């Protein structure tokens, strides 16, 4: 008899959308316990955050002093740690605060800022601990998560696919939003996995799956300039969902300084 691998799903600062990759899985959610022993997944009702596990999925970014301690404990008790989603892989949209003065923002929103305790920055999980696999996406899909689990169950390293969204548009025979419509599409520098849904809806990709491998952000930014975008608009394109992913952060900040 084989023992089922123990699995935990942890949440840090996030919108919970990536946990829905599990919770929206329907029948597969009922089948998973035959393959895996889910020991901790608060939203689904399994509670044992400190149990040693074979695989830990981590959603969300590191955002508070307590988060730092918690992710270190999780790392220490996990054999294989997978960060899921834009928040966990790059700090998420809330990493936009890394560009501003958090103290001023707290004062602007909360009447009693002294009650609010946060770090100065929203950080990716990999900035705090070693991460074995990153699944990018805002949100990640059930297919991404299941593929990773399947690979690990078979004892092979999960495939890392950081192809560009453009590849999917070609396969789907979607008309190019950048070339044919002149929209500032981030598809040429964004990783695939979403199914290229934005171009399929006739709109430009906004980069929610983070940078692809070898993204030529500089050339694309110049192309955007050719479309008539001002430096401030170009900066905003890159400084969005995956604003703290290094490739997007560098390009965005460069154009922000020119603005």
């Amino acid at each position, binding site marked *: 008899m084989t023992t089922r691998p123990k699995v935990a799903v*942890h*949440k*840090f*600062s*996030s*919108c*919970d*959308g*990536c*946990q*829905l990759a599990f919770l*929206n899985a*329907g*029948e597969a*959610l*009922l089948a998973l*316990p035959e393959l895996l022993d*889910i020991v901790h997944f*608060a*939203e*689904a*009702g*399994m*509670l044992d955050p400190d149990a040693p596990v074979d695989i830990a999925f981590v959603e969300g970014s590191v*955002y*508070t002093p*307590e*988060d730092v301690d918690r992710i270190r404990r999780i790392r220490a008790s996990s054999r294989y740690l997978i960060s899921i989603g834009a928040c966990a892989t790059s700090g*998420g*949209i*809330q990493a*936009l*605060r890394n560009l*501003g003065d*958090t103290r001023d*923002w*707290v004062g*602007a*929103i*909360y*009447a*009693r800022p002294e*009650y*609010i305790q*946060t770090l100065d920055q929203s950080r990716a999980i990999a900035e705090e601990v070693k991460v074995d696999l990153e699944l990018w996406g*805002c*949100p990640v*899909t059930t297919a991404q998560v299941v593929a990773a689990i399947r690979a690990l169950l078979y004892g092979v390293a999960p495939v890392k696919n950081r192809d560009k969204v453009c590849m999917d548009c070609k396969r789907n025979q979607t008309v190019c939003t950048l070339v044919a419509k002149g929209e500032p599409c981030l598809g040429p520098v964004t990783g695939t996995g*979403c*199914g290229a*849904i*934005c171009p399929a*809806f*006739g*709109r430009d990709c*906004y980069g*929610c799956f983070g940078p692809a491998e070898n993204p030529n952000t500089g050339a694309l930014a110049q192309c955007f300039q050719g479309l008539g975008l001002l430096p401030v608009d170009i900066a*905003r394109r890159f400084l*969005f*969902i995956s604003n703290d992913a290094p490739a997007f952060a560098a390009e965005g900040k460069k154009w922000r300084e020119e603005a």
Partner: protein
Amino acid sequence: MSEERRIHIEVPVLARVEGEGALHLRIEDGRIEHLQLRIFEPPRFFEKFLEGRAWHEVPDVVARICGICPVAYQMSAVQALEDIFAITPDPWVRAMRRVMYCGEWIQSHALHIHLLALPDFFGCNSVVELARDHAGEVRRGFRLQALGNDLIALFGGRSVHPVGVRVGGFHRAPDAERIAELLPRLEAGVAEAADLVRWCAGIAMPDDQQEFVSVALRAEDEYAMGEGRVVSSTGLDLARQDYDSHFSESHIAHSTALYSHLDGQPYLVGPLARLNLNHAQLPDSTRALLQASGLQLPSRNMFHSLLARALEIHLALVEAVRLLSAPPAFESAYQPASPRAGIGYGATEAPRGLLWHRYETAADGSIVSARIVPPTSQNQARMEEDLKQSLEAFGLDQHEDAIRLRGETVIRNYDPCISCATHFLRLGIEREPQ
């Protein structure tokens, strides 16, 4: 000698509301002397992220506030911006937005009923345990949840952070073939939702009568979802622009969520509040199910929220079938926007209740300031009030595990964005001799 029991119920993982939360109870002489539902929500500063953003980026920003109800955030936001840009959505856009919103109510309510709430009433810890004895019902719940997700994806490409909504309408209209594929499943879903309502109506619920004020939108000619005036069970009737004249938010030391009050009092938003106020506008078939269920409205028992959600799933499926079967004619999926400076308001009914937005734009349409009042902060004061009353009614001399479970169950009635976390209430008791 009197004994003080200090009970801490900890909520360490919160949906969208992350970090440590706790319920502090101080019981003296068999009464709750002090109760605080602490929610620690590390602020994600969305209102500040929106400042300086282009108007067309707003739907993609606000979706990220909540993975379970992104459509609600998008709908309130585009309504406010259309307000500023003087766009009146045409009948097709209004109808299709309602269908998409139906999808969100269906998936969110189905998820809440089956994965979050029902395990309490069957003595289970999770839906996986529940499925051992009620496999058919759980699978039906998953089918309904999937149907809701597929409806959202029809208009947005995916159910979490969908990409189809824009100011003025949709980026593109769904293909007729995909609608034709979905319609038979939606029709089958109406029958399954009716079974769900009958099943939920038969589940024994605590009888916990409390006084509270219900607040919801009310539309002229339909069960309000994406538009309407703000009404209350005390006779309030306001345009969404005037929300501030009666509702106020305050910041309390023990929580980072803001608390909302109506004229200084706690109030309820969400499915039971909507049903209490708007049940006369349910479609005939849903109203017949309501009558057969024996539920008397207005209800003063928050445990009826489960049945209210089931009824709203049925309503949403009936509405989706009606609107997709005979959609209004349209020429374009959206009206182009002419950005300008101004102030606009959005108010729609998220699955968890009223979701209010206010935006100020500059001449180029970029966002100068934003204010967002989510349902959970509106229910927060009511949740504390409810916990105090219902735990006293339940009996404070009970075992702490029983008190904890009742506390969790009460909190889950509100399906707060912390509801996932409240699976997780941990009870620790300190006894201090006085």
